[in-house]
């Protein structure tokens, strides 16, 4: 019995294929939009790129959303969604502030670790409920979003953590740079590379895609769907926890409403970056560039003279455009596959 393939293996060289992948990939399309936005804003106001403050902001401002988008992308790839990340961020950000207030002199590294662990714990709750309860993640995490936010509201009340409550060494992290690259951006990029590498090469990472493509098939094939889904939520929660600590360092003021609505931005970033909302495809690179684009557009639109009120509409249009593009590409791809089958 000879094996037949629907699509012949490419006869082009590896280099050619790499170039064409880069040129046609979703990630590079989004990256191109990002470059256009930056260039447009820079042409209006050269300081957008060339003053030291705005160069720093260009790299620094997306770092929190980038962390959340990476975690969100991993969860969405398994055909789930995590709406509780904004509340998780608020909880860990407030926890960070409280740790500094109640334990003067606590090492910054310990605070980072506690923040990540707390986030992972909240993610574990989500994962257990989703995987064991067999209830759609949308419903579960909508619930935990309110529960976690309720806990912060109860805990913090009208109290807020102020910049003067936290050590200056920690707050300096918010703006510190190494070779003009902000430290927080370096943290976010290291996380991005690690998660991206895992998803692309590790067995566990590939299984996440398999589960997202077809959960039942993945289960029949013998994959431990439950374990992988819980793992995805724990990772997402841990990254939200890290984002919470970063938030505290960056903004210096934490109230119980920190990060309200940021979960939808994280979902938006992932979708714009080409992570299919029904799972199984997309990369964290795309989600990261999507996050970067969302934040940069928000910073660029005022310079381009777009009114405050229209800025959200532009973001919405971008999300819809991304989904339409996805749909068009998917239809074209399936038509090509059908043609290839009919021709053979």
């Amino acid at each position, binding site marked *: 019995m000879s094996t037949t393939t629907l699509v012949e293996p490419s006869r082009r060289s590896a280099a050619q294929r790499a170039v064409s992948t880069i040129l046609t990939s979703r990630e590079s399309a989004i990256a191109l939009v990002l470059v256009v936005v930056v260039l447009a804003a820079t042409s209006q*106001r050269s300081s957008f790129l060339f003053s030291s*403050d705005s160069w720093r902001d260009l790299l620094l401002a997306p770092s929190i959303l980038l962390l959340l988008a990476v975690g969100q992308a991993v969860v969405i790839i398994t055909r789930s969604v995590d709406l509780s990340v904004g509340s998780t961020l608020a909880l860990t950000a407030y926890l960070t502030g409280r740790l500094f207030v109640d334990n003067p002199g606590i090492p910054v590294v310990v605070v980072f670790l506690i923040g990540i662990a707390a986030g992972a714990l909240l993610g574990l709750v989500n994962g257990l409920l989703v995987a064991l309860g067999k209830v759609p993640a949308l419903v579960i995490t909508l619930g935990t979003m309110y529960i976690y936010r309720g806990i912060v509201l109860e805990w913090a009340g009208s109290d807020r953590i102020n*910049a003067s409550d936290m050590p200056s060494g920690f707050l300096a992290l918010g703006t510190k740079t190494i070779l003009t690259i902000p430290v927080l951006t370096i943290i976010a990029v290291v996380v991005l590379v690690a998660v991206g590498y895992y998803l692309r090469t590790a067995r566990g990472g590939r299984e996440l895609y398999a589960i997202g493509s077809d959960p039942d098939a993945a289960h029949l094939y013998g994959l431990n769907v439950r374990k992988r889904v819980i793992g995805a939520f724990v990772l997402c929660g841990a990254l939200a926890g890290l984002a919470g600590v970063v938030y505290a360092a960056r*903004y210096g*003021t934490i109230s119980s409403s920190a990060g309200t609505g940021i979960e939808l931005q994280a979902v938006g970033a992932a979708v714009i970056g080409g992570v299919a909302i029904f799972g199984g495809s997309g990369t964290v690179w795309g989600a990261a560039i999507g996050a970067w684009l969302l934040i940069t557009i928000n*910073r660029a639109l005022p310079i381009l003279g777009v009114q405050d009120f229209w800025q959200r509409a532009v973001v919405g249009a971008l999300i819809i455009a991304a989904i339409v593009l996805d749909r068009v590409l998917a239809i074209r791809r399936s038509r090509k596959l059908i043609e290839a089958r009919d021709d053979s």
Partner: protein
Amino acid sequence: MKFSNKKATALAALAVSAALVLSACGGGSDSDGGGSGGGGGDLSVTFLPKNLGNPYFDTSDKGGKAAVEEFGGKFSEVGPQEATPDGQVPFINTAAQQGIGALVVSANDPKAIGDALNEARDAGTKVVTFDSDTDPEYRDLFINQASAEGIAKVQVKMIAEQIGDAGDIAILSAAANATNQNEWIDLMKKEIAASHPNIKVVDTVYGDDDDQASFDKTSALLQKYPNLKGIVSPTTVGIAAAARYVSDSDFKGKVKVTGLGTPNQMREYVENGTVDAFALWNPEDLGYLAAFAAKALVDGDITGKEGDTFTAGKLGDYTVGADSTVLLGDPFEFTKDNIGDFDF
């Protein structure tokens, strides 16, 4: 067995709730005994803040205590742990039964405590509200912390002083539909047009009273208007976020930040030189004035009628305005020199 178990549980629940109710009645009150039965001239004054352990009210009650000691009355402070609408009712009832001379209240709800207050007034207790009013029919006098005109005026004065009465400024507000802020901004613009022709308000942006949004809007403002000399933020969240952004950017010292803020939030930025001055009313003076107003009512010097006048110790003479309201005066300016005296 099952039945008696249930019964035992019910009994236990009853006992627990009874204990809770009892402790709620006794809890939180540190009154040092009531006055000597109603009647004019009884100078026992009880302060009832929205909740105990709130630094803002700790400050106002400190002012009240100083005033009461000054005129030789008897001061006490009671209050609920939580700022709930009806949490103050038991304390009002207790005060009425003790027949104290006057009750000074910051209302958690304009109506919920109304009946209790009227009962107290029927028993001969004078009721003064401060900070947060009830409906006028439930109290004898309201001490208003600031008028919209005063707030607008002091902010224009501060920014004019800080930028040398000439140049571009921008306003960073709360939500676009925030009634208070919009009223203040309108009045500020009128004041600038009338008496500061060289100051130009180039833009008004909205940070939605969200740390992150306010922070990012500040960054956008500074990008968009390279000649900006100052930012005025008539909201406590906005001013802290703007100050935080400016304090670790190249704009520190070049762009002035001012507006309405609280000392604890702004301490860091006043001490590091980002902010020269900001304003808010002085809660200590507010409590001081409320105590003297209570004394004037008890002594029968005033009845709460428009045009009544009384003297409030070191603060001078006050006149009762429309709706039995007394205005504390112009907002208080906090600077490097006096910020150390405040903790709220």
